[in-house]
């Protein structure tokens, strides 16, 4: 230890360090800069200079060494016509007898699998389904490992495009694979009913686990199993004329497949000379140009939004002979894909952005939150330190209160105080006036006015924080109750009652919470209006900022895209709206909160706004971020984009459609979370069914339950 003229900020004895001073003075600029910088950086990631070319990290795939021998194209055509005949006979169901007969004919171990979905909302509705699968036992292995080829079967009456060609292809592949001697892994051909639900049920039954809530999806049991699943590929071909292959990768909760698998498919297509795309978009022709960057960035954003929704985009791929190559490469695998090649974004088919490249921009976007929290903390310390020098506070007969939010002492809000003690403190204060001492902070000389109010204030801070989370949790678990009430007493359909219930709850909270809080926090402090709430406002503010930052980080680890969307939407408001002692010299009472917190799905931002009227503007700014309102807004925009003609003459039908989209979104997200255990139920999930296309589009934004589903 030694003396220095200029030092690091390690000694409080000499006031603030330079860095700290810079931080405090310029924190708003810094936060804004880091936010904008982060966003710009992220947009730049689509440029080749900022991302990397894909490569194979798993050499055992030996992707170049496979020579395809597939010669069953003719039989595929036969299968297709047979399937079409069968489909005419069973317009609503899977042609099980035919399918099972075909698989058995190929000498595969053929089994069926029944599953049941107990609809979680509303009383006692049940849906059943049946999967068929055949296992090709590995001639050169001990059935300890398996590859899966799945085909979702869609009866003609389904709203989705048919997958009959892919079933034909799968069967012809099975026929071809059967004759080969080199398989070291079991190959399971799985035909599922009810799209993702069927796959989910089959996987749950295969592994003997349950991901969703108990008793919702009854996965049943399997009578035959292969080895542990190494890789799976889902095949969807809508016609027998294949023009291009689109690789779809986003899974449940934004999980991604190993990049090697994706690369493998692209590489194989390249070798075959088949047009292969990602997000239905070709690679930019010249990536160095502005157009090239725009193109790549557009692709990137499409991926971000799909991943952020956390809803798997089911139609996985469109393959032809490539499938054989892929399976033979996979057959070479020595071990499961294990390298951490699961964290990536793709701006093109042959470029990728790894976790090391995309985390820094997110860090910059969210970093402002930490800076802000730190500055607020410093200011709070400073306020305490400076207070003994204010004549007024001394004469007010205030008592001593030192609040340390250090570590766990946070919770010791309710510290006993006695008034007489202050007489003694008076002497200390005299000492403090001493110029010699004025440079040093004095831990015990922190003064304030009206201990009573502080104590209540801190209690309130904790109460607000806790109750916001408790209300959020309660709402989260209330979905069933709401629908039952709606159904039994009002005769409303599920979606409607759920939506209305949430809207009412949110409105109540928005209106009631601030009123209750402000009235309650005003009452017990007759001492001084100034001390009312002001002391604990920063504390709550800091807690909320830190919570947002932490949650952001945790989410972005799970699902980067969701974290990114979340950060971009909420950071600016969090940064802008957090006033402590505002510039106008008004004591600030407004605490901002973060609506979609860890558990508080519907804890509206309004919760925290114990503001007075003058904070109205800020409150209005927060309102759109309140989940249910955000949901409506997103639905409106989405509907406007999907149905521009209706948007043109903005009338009732447009609003109805948007409204039903919003309520459907809510319902589906709830049901999804019950059935799949998706760790976030997307609130603002908007879904529309463009009848002509019959496709399903889903966009969702906010996380409800943060993490740890497993």
């Amino acid at each position, binding site marked *: 230890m030694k*003396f220095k003229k200029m030092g690091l900020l390690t*000694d409080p004895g000499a006031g603030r360090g330079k860095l700290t001073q810079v931080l405090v003075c310029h924190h708003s600029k810094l936060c804004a800069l880091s936010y904008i910088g982060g966003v710009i950086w992220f947009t730049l990631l689509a440029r080749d200079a900022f991302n990397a070319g894909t490569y194979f990290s798993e050499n055992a795939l030996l992707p170049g060494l496979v020579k395809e021998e597939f010669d069953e194209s003719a039989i595929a055509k036969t299968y297709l016509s047979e399937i079409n005949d069968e489909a005419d006979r069973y317009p609503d169901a899977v042609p099980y007898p035919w399918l099972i007969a075909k698989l058995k004919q190929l000498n595969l171990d053929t089994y069926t699998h029944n599953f049941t979905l107990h609809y979680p909302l509303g009383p006692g509705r049940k849906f059943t389904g049946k999967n068929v699968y055949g296992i090709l036992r590995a001639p050169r292995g001990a059935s300890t490992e398996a590859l899966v080829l799945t085909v979702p079967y869609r009866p003609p009456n389904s709203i989705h495009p048919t997958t009959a060609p892919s079933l034909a292809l799968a069967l012809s592949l099975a026929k071809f694979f059967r004759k080969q001697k080199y398989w070291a892994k079991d190959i399971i051909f799985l035909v599922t009913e009810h799209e993702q639900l069927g796959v989910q049920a089959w996987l749950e039954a295969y592994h003997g686990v349950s991901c969703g809530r108990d008793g919702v999806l009854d996965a049943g049991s399997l009578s035959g199993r292969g080895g542990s699943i190494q890789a799976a590929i889902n095949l969807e071909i809508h016609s027998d004329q294949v023009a291009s292959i689109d690789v779809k990768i986003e899974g449940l909760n934004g999980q991604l497949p190993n990049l090697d698998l994706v690369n493998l498919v692209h590489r194989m297509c390249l070798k075959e000379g088949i047009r292969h795309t990602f997000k239905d978009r070709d690679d930019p022709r010249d990536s160095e140009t502005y157009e090239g960057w725009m193109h790549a960035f557009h692709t990137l954003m499409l991926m971000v939004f799909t991943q952020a929704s956390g809803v798997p985009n089911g139609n996985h791929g469109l393959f032809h002979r490539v499938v054989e190559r892929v399976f033979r490469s996979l057959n070479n695998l020595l071990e499961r894909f294990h390298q951490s090649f699961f964290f990536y974004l793709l701006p093109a088919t042959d470029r990728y952005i790894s976790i090391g490249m995309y985390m820094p921009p997110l860090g910059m976007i969210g970093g402002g939150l930490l800076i802000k929290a730190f500055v607020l903390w410093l200011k709070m310390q400073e306020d305490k330190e400076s207070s003994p020098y204010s004549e007024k506070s001394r004469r007010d007969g205030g008592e001593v209160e030192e609040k340390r939010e250090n570590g766990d002492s946070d919770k010791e809000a309710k510290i006993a105080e006695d008034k007489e003690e202050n007489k003694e403190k008076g002497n200390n204060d005299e000492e403090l006036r001493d110029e010699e001492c004025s440079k040093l902070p004095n831990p015990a000389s922190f003064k304030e006015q009206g201990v009573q109010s502080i104590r209540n204030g801190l209690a309130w801070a904790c109460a607000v924080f806790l109750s916001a989370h408790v209300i959020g949790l309660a709402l989260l678990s209330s979905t069933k109750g709401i629908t039952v009430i709606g159904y039994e007493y009002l005769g409303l359909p599920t979606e409607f009652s759920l939506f209305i219930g949430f809207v009412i709850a949110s409105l109540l909270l928005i209106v009631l919470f601030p009123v209750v809080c402000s009235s309650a926090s005003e009452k017990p402090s007759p001492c001084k209006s100034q001390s009312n709430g002001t002391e604990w406002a920063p504390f709550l503010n800091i807690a909320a900022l830190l919570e947002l930052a932490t949650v952001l980080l*945790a989410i972005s680890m799970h699902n980067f895209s969701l974290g990114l969307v979340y950060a971009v939407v909420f950071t600016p408001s969090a940064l802008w709206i957090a006033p402590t002692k505002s510039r106008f010299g008004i004591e600030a009472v407004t605490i901002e909160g973060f609506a979609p917190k860890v558990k508080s799905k519907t804890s509206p931002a309004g919760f925290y706004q114990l503001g007075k009227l003058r904070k109205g503007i800020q409150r209005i700014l927060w309102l759109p971020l309140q989940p249910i309102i955000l949901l409506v807004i997103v639905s409106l925009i989405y509907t406007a984009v999907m149905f521009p003609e209706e948007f043109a003459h903005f009338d009732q039908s447009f609003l109805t459609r948007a409204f039903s989209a919003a309520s459907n979104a809510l319902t589906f997200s709830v049901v999804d979370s019950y059935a799949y255990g998706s760790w976030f139920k997307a609130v603002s999930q908007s879904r529309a069914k463009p009848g002509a296309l019959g496709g399903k589009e889903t966009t969702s934004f906010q996380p409800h339950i943060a993490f740890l589903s497993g």
Partner: protein
Amino acid sequence: MFLSIKIRIKSFAIMGTLLLTLHAVAGIARYWLINSEYQQTIAGRVEVSTPLNSWKRVTEGVYLYQEGIDPYSGDMFHETPVGLYVFDWLIRNCSQWLGIIFVASDLLTAHLLYMTAKYFMVELVETENRERNSYAKDVGNILLKEKDLREAPLHVAAAYLLNPYALLSCAALTTTVFSNLCLASALLAMVSGRHILSGVFLAVATYQSLYPAVLIVPSCMYAARSFGPSKTITGKFKVFTTVGVFLISLAFILCASAKISSGWHFLNSVYGCILTVPDLRPNVGLFWYFFTEMFEHFRSLFLAAFQLNALALYVGPLSMRLRSAPFLLAEALVALAAVFRSYPSLGDIALPLALLPMWRHLFAYMQQGFIVGCFLLITSVLGPTVWHLWIYSRSANANFYFGVTLFFATAQIFLITDLLFAHIKREFSLRNGLKQEIDGKAAKLVLE
């Protein structure tokens, strides 16, 4: 320190109520968690349950013991034989009261810490009064404040009772609850000047988890302090008795253990496991990753290095520097052992964290409180997140988890160094006055 009796009574009444409320809240929270559906999840977390303290292993060992199979013959059970005997008795006779026993032990620990803090406050005041003459003139406002002294014990109790780490540790029914109890008893005996008792409790704590052995140094320092005229002789004698009692008690317990487990092979299972780290299940510590990655023939070298780091490395220098503050030394050693031990759990970390508010008068000198707080918060959330990604989603890997635990350990080390440096800065200011100048310009203290 002026305080009228009236105030004393009044404040005591308020504090008593608060303390009771805290105990009640903490007790209810713990009891609820133990009986809730989350208990299994918490008990299964690697951060909370390690091979050394997990209740599952205890029940396994007890079952084997009851069946007449030596639990130490396998590598499943690492509790001490006395622990085995006690848990066997508990499981036989009061298995329905187990939750209550764990909660009561934890509450008792909190109370012992509270008492410890009270004694320590008295000691602080006495030290200050004794040394007041040697302080510089202008230090009036950095002297101890009555308020700090009055509130610190309560804060210590609250910091243990409401500590999420302690809460989880108790909810998972880890045997760390009892280790902490022993450690707290040893600290209380030490700080209250009962040197014989401190020797005994220290022996028990050491017997349980080995690492508290280093606390014999601060214990001896306390024993050597005597304020009477026959300073040196009494001091030496007391040091001698403390060490003697410690060794004798330890020997006695070990012999009793040998009797219980009929042989000395338990030593290998209990202390061998602590020292040689055979079980490399991930935990919040630093051992598992290194020893998984390392070439096998370097193992003994690194074991020695790591264990020296955890046990002995800091004792010498810190003892010399903190001669005048033995309890701070004890805190530093406990905290360091919690970071560097081979199988740390959150329960181990809770104790030194809970002791922190005793040094409230140093908080103004601490610079990294906020940063450390953020670190602890973020790593506590991120740890389970990346664990999930690693184990369940299989997308992340061990490096992610180790990275997070590394940050967690770093944060704790920051906290310790910050506290120690704050102490040194305050001492310096007390001796040399507040105003420091070099060449007529204000200077500041910098750690280099």
